[in-house]
């Protein structure tokens, strides 16, 4: 089902006209309302009138995650708090989260793009959608929730976890759609097997999966184990949340809702646009958001854009599954983890440079994070209980910063391999 045919099937010229008009308005608004944007534009010798069409977008300065952090919590909002009706936040690199605020119109726009995404995935009004993304500061749960209601389907707001109950409700309420992370989908299939529940006996037909990277082989595994069609949805809270883009039934790239979010691909080294169809870093500009409009936000996700018309009839540009990151961020159980967060915790506990290694494994279907810390002499104590207390303290401090559990192991000095003087910080053993 194509929810908004006028937009989703617009010609390239029509889309460019919409984008140009909205971009011009957004640039004017941020220039006059957000000092940090004004300063950045002035540094490039730009005034709002220099942006005459969407073609001029490349003249604009970039926004990066630390811009949001530097203006924590509300410094990038363009409207007074009285107009902000909801806040969401995602984990930041130093423990400070990235905060986004939504006006009433922003929430309506968000519901619209999620509704379109559900339409792309093949969901219709008769469906019963079980939203097993976390509800809370994370955008996954509430994002899918309001999109489903807007579509007119039935939503089961079960949130994440409670796996046996998830499966019980799938049986009792006859859910036809499940929305969660792809790794949780695999976990659900395992628990079904343990409970003796045959996926064929359920009514599930579509899965909408996002918030973490997953491969084509994982898609095939989920589809064969749960007997469903597995659809990839993309989003990030800085832009809006889930619904920035989503696959259609043809599963050939995610259609970007580009009348709200303009995508670009740049070379992460030179910051120049890449040739059409080439892989690079994905950059988004929001052109309808009121609470916290964001220009040329560097997502750090690596992908490419496909402008050919899709078999589904949509003309919206498609982005391929993300192929990695241009920074060292890890996504573990839907949570963003930067090695620098771990480093800052260890640094705060000792005076010299800590040597550590993060190891991510997929045990069964769940991601586990292990941290090896070398016991340098500044950490070493002759007493067992002091070393155990140290281990506990590292575990506790890291868990409270990252928000996910970590298994800390104290190791001897020089255990962690150094290459060319620089220690390797991350080993990701997950096959995704």
């Amino acid at each position, binding site marked *: 089902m194509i929810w908004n045919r006028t937009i989703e099937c617009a010609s390239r010229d029509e889309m460019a006209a919409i984008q140009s008009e909205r971009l011009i308005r957004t640039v004017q608004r941020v220039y006059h309302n957000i000092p940090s944007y004004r300063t950045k534009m002035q540094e490039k010798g730009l005034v709002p009138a220099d942006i005459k069409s969407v073609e001029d977008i490349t003249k604009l300065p970039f926004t990066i995650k630390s811009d949001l952090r530097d203006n924590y919590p509300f410094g990038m909002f363009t409207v007074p708090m009285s107009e902000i009706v909801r806040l969401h936040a995602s984990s930041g690199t130093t423990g400070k989260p990235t905060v986004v605020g939504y006006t009433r119109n922003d929430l309506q726009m968000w519901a619209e793009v999620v509704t379109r995404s559900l339409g792309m995935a093949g969901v219709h009004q008769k469906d019963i959608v079980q939203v097993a993304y976390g509800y809370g500061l994370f955008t996954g749960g509430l994002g899918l929730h309001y999109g489903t209601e807007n579509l007119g389907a039935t939503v089961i707001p079960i949130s994440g976890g409670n796996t046996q109950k998830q499966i019980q409700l799938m049986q009792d309420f006859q859910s036809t759609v499940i929305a969660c992370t792809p790794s949780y989908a695999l976990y659900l299939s395992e628990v079904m097997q343990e409970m003796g529940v045959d996926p064929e006996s359920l009514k599930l037909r579509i899965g909408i999966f996002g918030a973490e990277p997953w491969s084509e082989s994982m898609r095939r595994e989920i589809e064969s184990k749960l007997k469903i069609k597995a659809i990839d949805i993309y989003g990030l809270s800085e832009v809006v949340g889930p619904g920035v883009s989503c696959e259609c039934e043809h599963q050939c790239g995610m259609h970007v809702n580009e009348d709200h979010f303009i995508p670009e691909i740049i070379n992460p080294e030179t910051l120049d646009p890449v040739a059409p169809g080439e892989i690079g870093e994905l950059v988004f500009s929001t052109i309808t958001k009121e609470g916290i409009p964001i220009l040329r936000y560097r997502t750090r996700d690596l992908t490419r854009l496909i402008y050919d018309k899709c078999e589904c009839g949509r003309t919206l540009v498609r982005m391929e599954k993300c192929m990695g990151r241009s920074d060292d961020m890890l996504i573990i159980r839907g949570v963003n983890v930067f090695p620098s967060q771990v480093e800052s915790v260890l640094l705060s506990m000792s005076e010299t440079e800590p040597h550590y290694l993060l190891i991510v494994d997929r045990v069964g279907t769940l991601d586990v994070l292990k941290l090896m810390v070398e*016991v*340098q*002499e500044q*950490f*070493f*104590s*002759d*007493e*067992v209980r002091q*070393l*155990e207390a140290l*281990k506990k303290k590292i575990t506790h401090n890291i868990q409270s910063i990252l928000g996910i559990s970590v298994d800390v*192991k*104290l*190791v*001897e*000095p*020089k*255990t962690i391999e150094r290459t060319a003087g620089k220690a390797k910080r991350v080993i990701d053993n997950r096959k995704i």
Partner: protein
Amino acid sequence: MIIKQVSVFLENKSGRLSEVTRILGDAGINISAFTIADTSDFGILRLVVSDPDEACKVLRDSDFSVQTTEVLLANSPNKPGGLAQLLEFLNAKGAFIEYMYAFSMNDDQATIVIRPTNMQRCLAILEEYAG
């Protein structure tokens, strides 16, 4: 008497203990006593050696985490109840012991290593006991 004990951080993996003893042996350092405190993940090897400073140096050169700690040597009669008598005295005087282990033994004397919470206080108590 106060002496310097050498402590070494060891992961629980095979061959590490023999490596430490080989390094010390090659450096001409004699081990008079040792003990290992172990947990499920790691261990602390504590050694009394002929040259603690040199031992630290050669172990550090081989990338071990090493530390020296002051410990006390105490004598106790080598007969049933000998150690009990010493510990009862320490206990009665309020000395608290973090850990201890045996050092050497002959026909009439046994020597033990004690790591007390309060070094000076325990030393005074031991002197009082010996005196």
